[in-house]
């Protein structure tokens, strides 16, 4: 081969370690959770959902104090006032301020959603975790029981329980509603956790840990649960709107929260009467907020799932 003039002999000396390290082009290694967060941030829809949730959360705490009305305070001289500068969302047929009532209702709805999801999470992780770590036989029995519980129609049980525990006229308490929803609601979480545990139990890090004498509980707590956190988080995010929806449906049927207390569902139910007489705002405003909450949690859950999906990781 002919020696090119552009190359000097010097260039053909062996490359030193410094040469190699000089301009190493490597993408920075990406950590898992910051990476998930980064991808979530890119998802505009999911971020919209997150912002809505945060705003709703804040407003459900402070919203009832903002315009100086009490959620129970009736004023018969001011019934069915359309939204104006004093009553921002108008008043209902008893003259109660709907802005205050709406945020009071949002507080109830969010509380129910979050508490129900929390209970589902606790029972589901515990039950699923135990089933996954237990012997095959115990696992099979536990899953059969879960299957039976799950095929009991969810809403029917919720309705029945609310009938049993509500005394005439006072409606169903928050506690009963949440209890009723959690009765069957934990099963999907348990199935999810069990599946993950079964998969991860066989993984190398669990086996390594076991070979070092770790107990099953320790492995479950230290290795498996942290690694299933992603799917669990998605499930929780999607349980919340389901519970909120269930409560709204119940309250809309008049079986949930009773006045003077309010949830978004019961407000929609009360407002329904205003629809034929030109007071559509009474039902549309709570309806809008229910839809917003449902929307926000659903798109956030979707976004989380996409952000966690390792197949989309590049």
């Amino acid at each position: 081969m002919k020696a090119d003039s552009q190359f000097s002999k010097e260039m053909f000396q062996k490359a030193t370690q410094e040469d190699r390290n000089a301009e190493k082009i490597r993408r920075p290694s990406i950590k898992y959770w910051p990476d998930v967060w980064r991808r979530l941030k890119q998802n505009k829809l999911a971020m919209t959902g997150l912002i809505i949730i945060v705003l709703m959360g804040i407003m459900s705490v402070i919203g009832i104090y903002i315009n100086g009305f009490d959620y129970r305070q009736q004023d018969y001289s001011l019934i069915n006032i359309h939204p104006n500068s004093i009553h921002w969302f108008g008043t209902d047929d008893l003259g109660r301020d709907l802005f205050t009532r709406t945020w009071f209702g949002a507080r109830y709805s969010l509380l129910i959603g979050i508490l129900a999801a929390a209970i589902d999470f606790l029972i589901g992780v515990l039950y699923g975790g135990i089933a996954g770590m237990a012997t095959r036989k115990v696992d099979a029995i536990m899953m059969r029981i879960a299957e039976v519980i799950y095929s009991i129609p969810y809403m029917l049980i919720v309705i029945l329980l609310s009938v049993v525990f509500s005394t005439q006229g006072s409606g169903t308490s928050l506690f009963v509603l949440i209890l009723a929803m959690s009765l069957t609601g934990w099963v999907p979480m348990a199935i999810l956790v069990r599946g993950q545990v079964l998969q991860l139990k066989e993984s190398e890090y669990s086996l390594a840990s076991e070979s070092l004498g770790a107990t099953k509980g320790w492995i479950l707590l230290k290795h498996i649960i942290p690694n299933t956190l992603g799917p669990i988080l998605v499930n929780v995010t999607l349980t919340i709107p389901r519970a909120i929806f269930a409560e709204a449906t119940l309250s809309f049927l008049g079986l949930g929260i009773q006045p003077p207390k309010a949830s978004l569902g019961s407000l929609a139910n009360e407002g329904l009467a205003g629809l034929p007489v030109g007071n559509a705002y009474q039902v549309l405003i709570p309806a809008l907020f229910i839809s917003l909450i449902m929307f926000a949690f659903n798109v956030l859950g979707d976004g989380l799932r996409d952000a966690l999906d390792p197949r989309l990781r590049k």
Partner: protein
Amino acid sequence: MKKYLLKRLGMSLVTLWAVVTITFILMHSVPGNPFAQEGKMPKAVYDNLQAKYGLDKPYTEQYAIYLKNLLKGDFGDSMKSRVETVNDMIERGFPVSARLGLQALVIALCFGPALGALAALYQNKIPDYISMIIAIIGISVPSFIMGTILIQFLARNVGWLPIAGWGTWQHTLLPSFAMALMPMATMARLMRSSMLEVLGQDYIKTAKSKGITKPAVILKHAVRNAILPVISILGTTISNLIVGSFVIEKIFGIPGLGRFFVQSIYNRDYTLIMGTTIFYAAILIIMLLLVDIAYMLIDPRIKLTKEGR
């Protein structure tokens, strides 16, 4: 296959029994007395009523009688209606609810998977956005709100369709659409993600590498596999439709079983509550069983794995 079916049937019966028992216990643990509302009544009348509904007997005996009657298909007498038994009310209400539910299911099944498949095929393009906007609306807006809005705008303001009531097919349009929207949206979303996953599978590449046309690849290979998860949620869908019917029948004033059920709760008509609950549970459990069987017929892999268990 047969063994699996028998096992599955057994599970269904256990579930049904569990529902019956839970319902029974719940209904009999209600504080106070079912006739308390009736105002003051003479002791003789009260005793008569107690005896008529068997409430004077011990719980275990009541339970045994109730189970025995159920096996004969007898749900007992209504506590509030003096003219109709629970069976009469179910017979009157169920066909109405069933028609509504079926129409909603058909609407959801026709449009949901199609929208989802379209969205996946045109991922991040306009059809995807349109489908997913519809799906997000469907998921975010509960049926009672959708029903209310539909009544307000399509029936009351524009007057195209009757506001409420029952009788002609026009009466069924708005309620079945309102009921269908959420299941349709759920199916569309599920179909989209499942279709996207299937489209990335090796066997789709194999199908393409055979040189068959694009529509054949999509219909015979992609959709055929992607629809499986949608079928597997049909049971839940039907369950949601039942709950949806409570709400929709209330809004639209439809004389279906859902309304009777809700009414029975307002009226504290315990035998009717119990009867309808058990009836609904039975319907649902049968549906779940049918869905399972359908799934087994469609996915050839299931037979082997389940048989092997």
